């Protein structure tokens, strides 16, 4: 029942938003969202937008993930691996 892909709010009429997910437009209720704005990326579940994606956090956590993954792999010392 979860739609994992975030959608973008492209239009707001009262409590209803028009949302775009990968080029497909649908309606979603904005009743559960604090301060919805056109341009927000949101998670939509069962016809309701339930959360905004925090853009700054998204960028930061992706950067962290990339760095951490790379470090962990580069770190690998083939001689030490056998002893764990």
């Amino acid at each position, binding site marked *: 029942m*979860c739609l994992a892909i975030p959608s973008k709010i492209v239009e707001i009429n009262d409590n209803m938003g028009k949302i775009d997910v990968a080029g497909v437009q649908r309606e979603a209720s904005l009743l559960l969202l604090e301060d919805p704005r056109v341009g927000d990326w949101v998670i939509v*579940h069962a*016809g*309701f937008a*339930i959360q905004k994606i925090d853009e700054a956090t998204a960028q930061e956590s992706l950067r962290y993930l990339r760095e951490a993954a790379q470090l962990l792999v580069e770190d690998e010392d083939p001689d030490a691996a056998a002893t764990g």
Partner: protein
Amino acid sequence: MTIKHSEEYREPELARQLVAAIRKTSNKPVQLMEVCGTHTMSIFRHGIRDVLPQTINLLSGPGCPVCVTSQQEIDTFIAYARQEDTIVATFGDLLRVPGTDSSLQKEKAEGRDIRVVYSAFDAVKMAAEQRGQRVVFLGVGFETTAPTIAASILAARDMGLENFHVVSAHKTVPNALEALMASEAVAISGFLLPGHVSVILGLNAYRPFFDRYQVPAVVAGFEPTDILEAIRRLVEQIEKGRPQLANAYPRAVSDTGNAKARAVLDQVFEPVDANWRGIGIIPASGLAIRDSLAQFDALRQVPVEVAEAREPAGCGCGEILTGAKIPPECKLYRKACTPENPVGPCMVSSEGTCAAYYRYHG
């Protein structure tokens, strides 16, 4: 076209690096349980089980809402469908779930008015358009779905609708985690906490559970690298012997969650004991409509009689929901029970473990 906030987290190189990191860190055999049907689907779809080292065993827990709905509740839904002058509105994945002697789909074939909706709000609109008929919405789902149904009930109140009713069979996750830990059935080394339930609840909601059991628990998103990163963190915590409650989905999940959605939820529902398939009664793990909104409660306004329910003979769905069994260990799997002819709910819902196994493992 790129899908923002999705495709970045599917990057094959990043996934490979995370898998390498997991392989390097993991020594002890562990059992990690996901408690979210969308995780189950994503893990199968992206073949995550196949790339993990043998030390890591992924178990699917009670994360599929339709699957954990008790047989008594399914029979209750069917009883509503049999009422005169009633339109039953439901999410599509409940239709084919077998009750004791029927299913919503069979009832529909026999001419009952059962309509599939995408949102509970569609059922409110239906009630507004057909005031002469009673509309009963079947409320199934966790904390992600329950606020959408709560908001729909409030909308019905504001619209002055007297013909809209909800059967609330919702379940809530944190207390179910406690029940899983308390049960002897499986030893769980760590939990992948559900992404969108946590969007609503926030990380802090799991704190009492975590403080009590000190079991590694990480909130995960749904893309492959989201899930791999959560697994990596769980494995690291286990290897270091330092359990933590952590959030690997910070772009959507905060410490406090969606306060507005929770306020709507609390305004409409109150905690109540609930019966989970495969687990039984878990205290305060269900949601009942509050007295102040009793006029929308189908169970109070239009009570139905339901005989004692029987779960399908030979179906191990209950054990599958607690991780005690995997689908091939059920004697009916792929024989009497297939997605075309499901015996139990775990084979019906696309989020069910039996259906996912069938689709991706054959």
